[in-house]
């Protein structure tokens, strides 16, 4: 694979690979909740971990982002958005849960 000029078979294979991975990860996440075999906190951690992996799979195979070949503006924007998301979501959760713990 080099540059944007892939063959048609490579392109179809990329989408099919992404689809296969996505189905497997989704199936695993639903299965582990439907047939619980771990403590609930472990299950939650596994589900969130699988979701993170699946998001990476979607970015890689469906949105076709790659660290080596994508335009640096696109990558910088993804990293910036990820930074904002992590800061705001974790900040919100930490502050509000802390506040709740103090008020209870």
């Amino acid at each position: 694979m080099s540059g944007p000029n892939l063959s048609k078979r490579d392109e179809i294979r990329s989408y099919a690979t992404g689809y296969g991975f996505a189905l497997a990860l989704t199936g695993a996440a639903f299965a582990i909740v439907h047939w619980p075999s771990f403590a609930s906190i472990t299950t939650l951690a596994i589900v969130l971990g699988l979701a993170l992996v699946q998001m990476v799979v979607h970015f890689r195979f469906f949105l076709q982002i790659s660290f080596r070949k994508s335009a640096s503006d696109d990558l910088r924007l993804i990293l910036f958005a990820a930074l904002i998301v992590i800061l705001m979501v974790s900040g919100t959760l930490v502050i509000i849960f802390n506040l709740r713990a103090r008020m209870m």
Partner: protein
Amino acid sequence: MTASDIRHAGLNLGDTDELTHEQAGRALFGFWVFLMSDAVLFALLFATYGVMVSATAGGPTPALEYKILPAFLETLTLLTSSFTFGMTSVTMKRGASRRQLLAWMGLTLVLGAAFLGMELHDFADMFGDAAYPTRSGYLSSFFALVPLHGLHVFFGIIWIAVMMMQVMVFGLDAPVKINILRLGLFWHFLDIVWIAIFSVVYLQGLIR
């Protein structure tokens, strides 16, 4: 390394249409900015949901309201529609027959509509259980987050229909191709938001 070795997000036209490929890089970057700002908006609604999920005010709880089978079927439908949109992009790029292109787009549209139908059915069930947005903080945040994704899918469906008409009326000229590339980014992005929804909202609510 020339400019055309660097890839924009989504499928690249590359050497199948050099001229449009040059324009697409700039055109798609603007759309990429919109998608990332939309991602931040969704992330904040997820944070709100995470804070509110235990605030059920004695009303319906997540474990009572969510059902695993519909959530699973909705996920499969949306995932499959992401794959069929991938095939739409490849068909468009490789200049296959217009009928083939319209068939993949139509299939994506039908899958999107099926997803939306199932989701609305879920919401109707929840309303039937008196789980409406004003009942509790948990339900307010649920109905702010999940239907917003549904609304995106709804506009995605309209956009697919519009693009099918543009393909029929204008054929595959540069603006139509670039619009289909944009629509592809939008559709795949919605699937990524749904991953977060089925994991954080549905599966988290159903863990025993």
